[in-house]
């Protein structure tokens, strides 16, 4: 491992690139992962997370660049399970073998005694089914078996690829606490996920990639402040729409960025709450609501990766089921005006049959006005390499 002014670098990737034929799965990815923290590895489906994980573990050879674990390429590790534990794919087991024999064969591979197998079976709660063939395991049980395999060698570095897939809520909580505990013991924990909400409560540090490229590499707290804006929500009496206009004008004049919300409220950015109240009072506008808000990690993530989503869902119009497409069918056209707001603020509530994040033309960069306001409202993005930054 390398010690630098940045601290220990247990996993270090430099210019990692992987091409499969004409498709570039990962491009020029450089990052490092430190011990004692849970590092989330985030990106939409197909962003290159698993490919990166496979390259870290020496399963795939990078087309260019290199990656080291503990200071050396993984394939030169003298006793890999004792140094690096990995959960790649819960189904990567021979279904005809029992859970215990599966773990035993892995333990023997690095000279780990058999009683350690029973220990980790206990840790993941699979003692009851240890003798059962893993073919009959549910996805959640498979994940637990994979985690047991990763823990087998009491390793310094742990890699988990989507560890909570298929787990029940109790299992998710268990994995979350397990990862935090492992990190608090001074281990390096590198977890990939496509769920920001999961990483928000688990990770200390975030590495976000999209289309195989690095989008962001910073702590969770920095990530939020860099990518989201505090704002105030203001509502004037519904009965008097002219008050809303009046307040909006007054706030804009004072330097705030004001955006109307679909339900008649206003989002105000760039002014503290007492100042908004004073301005409202000065303009003689009564308020029904004045509340502080902070954009969630999820929103920040959505905005960051919006340009980098490979598999974007479209509205299920069910036109494919129709014998002849009916023109009037599908989402009403008047939803469109709301759309530009998405990406700065909380996404609109899900419409029936419509994915909340997949409204057509949800690209925030299209309208000029609000886009220009973002840097004013939020601190400038810390990471200059971020290619998806709004213009």
């Amino acid at each position, binding site marked *: *491992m390398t010690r630098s002014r940045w*601290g*220990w670098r247990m996993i270090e990737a430099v210019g990692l690139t992987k091409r499969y034929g004409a498709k570039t799965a990962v491009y020029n990815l450089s990052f490092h992962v430190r011990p004692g*923290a849970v590092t989330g590895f985030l990106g939409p489906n197909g962003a290159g997370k698993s490919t990166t994980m496979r390259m870290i573990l020496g399963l795939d050879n990078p087309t260019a660049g290199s990656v080291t674990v503990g200071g050396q390429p993984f394939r030169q*590790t003298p006793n890999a399970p004792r140094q690096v534990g990995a959960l790649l794919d819960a189904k990567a087991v021979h279904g005809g073998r029992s859970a215990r024999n599966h773990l035993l064969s892995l333990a023997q*591979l690095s000279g780990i005694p058999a009683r350690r197998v029973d220990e980790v079976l206990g840790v993941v709660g699979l003692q009851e089914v240890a003798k059962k063939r893993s073919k009959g395991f549910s996805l959640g049980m498979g994940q637990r078996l994979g985690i047991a395999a990763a823990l087998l060698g009491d390793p*310094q570095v742990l890699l988990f690829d989507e560890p909570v897939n298929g787990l029940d809520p109790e299992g998710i909580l268990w994995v979350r606490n397990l990862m935090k505990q492992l990190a608090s013991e001074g*281990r390096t924990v590198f977890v990939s996920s496509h769920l920001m909400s999961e990483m928000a409560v688990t990770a*200390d540090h975030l590495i976000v990639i999209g289309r195989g490229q690095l989008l962001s590499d910073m702590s969770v707290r920095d990530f939020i402040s860099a990518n989201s804006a505090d704002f105030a929500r203001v509502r004037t009496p519904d009965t008097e729409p002219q008050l809303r206009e009046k307040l909006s004008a007054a706030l804009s004049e004072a330097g705030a960025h004001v955006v109307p919300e679909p339900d008649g409220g206003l989002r105000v950015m760039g002014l503290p709450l007492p100042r908004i109240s004073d301005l409202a009072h000065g303009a003689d506008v009564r308020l029904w609501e004045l509340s502080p808000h902070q954009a*969630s990690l999820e929103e920040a993530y959505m905005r960051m990766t919006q340009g980098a989503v490979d598999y974007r869902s479209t509205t299920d119009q069910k036109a494919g089921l129709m014998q002849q497409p009916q023109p009037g069918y599908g989402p009403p056209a008047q939803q469109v005006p709301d759309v530009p707001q998405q990406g700065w603020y909380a996404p609109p509530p899900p419409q029936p049959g419509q994915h909340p994040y997949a409204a057509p033309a949800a690209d925030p960069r299209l309208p000029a006005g609000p886009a220009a306001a973002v840097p004013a409202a939020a601190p400038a993005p810390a990471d200059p390499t971020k290619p998806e930054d709004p213009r």
Partner: protein
Amino acid sequence: MTTPYQHQGAPGAVYSSPIPIRRAHLGDAIASEWTKIRSVRSTIWTLSVMALLLVGIGLAVAAAITTSDANVEDQPILSLGFFGVLLGSLCVMTLGVLTVASEYGTGMIRTTLTACPTRGRVLTAKAIVFFALVFTVTLALTLFVGVAQVAIIDQGSPTTQEWLRSTLGVSLYLALLGLLSLAVGSMIRHSAGAITIMIGLVLLPLVMAMFMFTESLSWLQDALLEYSIPSQLGVLYDNSVTQSGPMGWEPLWIMLGIAAVALGAAYTMLNSRDV
């Protein structure tokens, strides 16, 4: 939705396991592969079917000969085991292919190579365990069948050479044939494809020879027949179809050469390919 987090990355506080770490070696991998091969049903099945074929056919042929009072003076008694072994070789080829290819089919190979990134060691361990298993099982079976046949037929006793070739020789040959299948399975990475290729390899010379009637081609036909896997096996039993071609222990060296080349190719491909 911000969440407080306690574990701020603390540089320097690197965890190290209280249990000392030693280097992993080939012995560990062999233990692991032994656990793997004995804990799947396909091993039990293929070896049981092989035992059934060797013993069943071997004893049935011997019994048929005694009851029909046929004269087998001109033919070594032990060669009666040939048909059983020929069919049993299919089981060995299947097991050899499955030992590696099933890891690819299930995805287990990624788990294995993550736990043992020294890929060559995994293949070596597999080859050693598989070879030892097949050799031991075949040796026990051929010995048993040989002793039983000599006892049933009771027409003189085979020479030591005959005994050695038809037990030790045949067992080594089958185990090497299995190694070849294992190497092919490792290169093809698909069970059905690799099994088909192995059966094709056994059949191709026979099929080609079957359609070579002409005189000027007879040398080629003879060569194809003599060097086909079934007749190599037959040579070990001393009832080769022809008088030229490989003799005595030669089939073993031929198969050793082929298996070594195939394993070498399998090593190269395993080390260079993405899993």
